[in-house]
């Protein structure tokens, strides 16, 4: 996941690498995702990876739905 100055720069990057455009998030959306994803303390013995269902629920809570965000 890379930071770009604008969507135009994303398109240029995709073209130069021959890749299709993926999903575009604002920095604020990415911060909200990072905050939700990484807030649990991984030093806690009770920590475990989220299940697929839990991850889907987290993504959906941030409005990240649709084929790109599907996990299966």
């Amino acid at each position, binding site marked *: *996941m*890379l*930071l*770009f*100055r*604008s*969507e135009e*720069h*994303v398109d*240029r*990057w*995709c073209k*130069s690498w021959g*890749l299709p*455009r*993926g*999903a*575009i*998030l*604002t*920095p*604020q*959306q*990415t*911060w909200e*995702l*990072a*905050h939700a*994803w*990484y*807030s649990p*303390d*991984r*030093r*806690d*013995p009770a*920590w475990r*990876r989220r299940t697929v269902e839990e991850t889907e629920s987290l*993504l959906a809570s941030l409005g990240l739905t649709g*084929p*790109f*965000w*599907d*996990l*299966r």
Partner: protein
Amino acid sequence: MAGTAEERDVKVRAEVYEVAMSSGTPPTIEEISQRLGFSRAEVLECLERLAAAKALVLQRDSREVLMANPFSAVPTPFAVYADERLYFGNCIWDGLGIAAMLNVDARIESSCGCCSESMRLRIIGQNLETVEGVVHFAIPAHRWWDDIVYN
């Protein structure tokens, strides 16, 4: 050998994160061995199980920790200055994730993936300061772990 394999895995994972959070980079196998009193072989076994469970990512040949997400063991273009330390995220999501995990103010020094123009993000009071730019997720979510190093 003290405890079950699962108990040792939990201790190693916690130690990896403890060191990454408090020093800026995940520990080496040797450091984990010394800190926990485990043999090198025991640490390696734990790391392999944790990697198989996708809790960590190991370097291909040395089997040292490469990623304890969001932390990178090697320098990346996602430098995070926080708590008077320098951390490296694995991607911009992880760079922001470091600020979230540490729960401190942070400055992320990165650059445009296309033109390399420098870009800076600031987290103050667990809020992102308004900033220009966009984040591109190139790989669909169901393929994130196909090649996590590339991703």
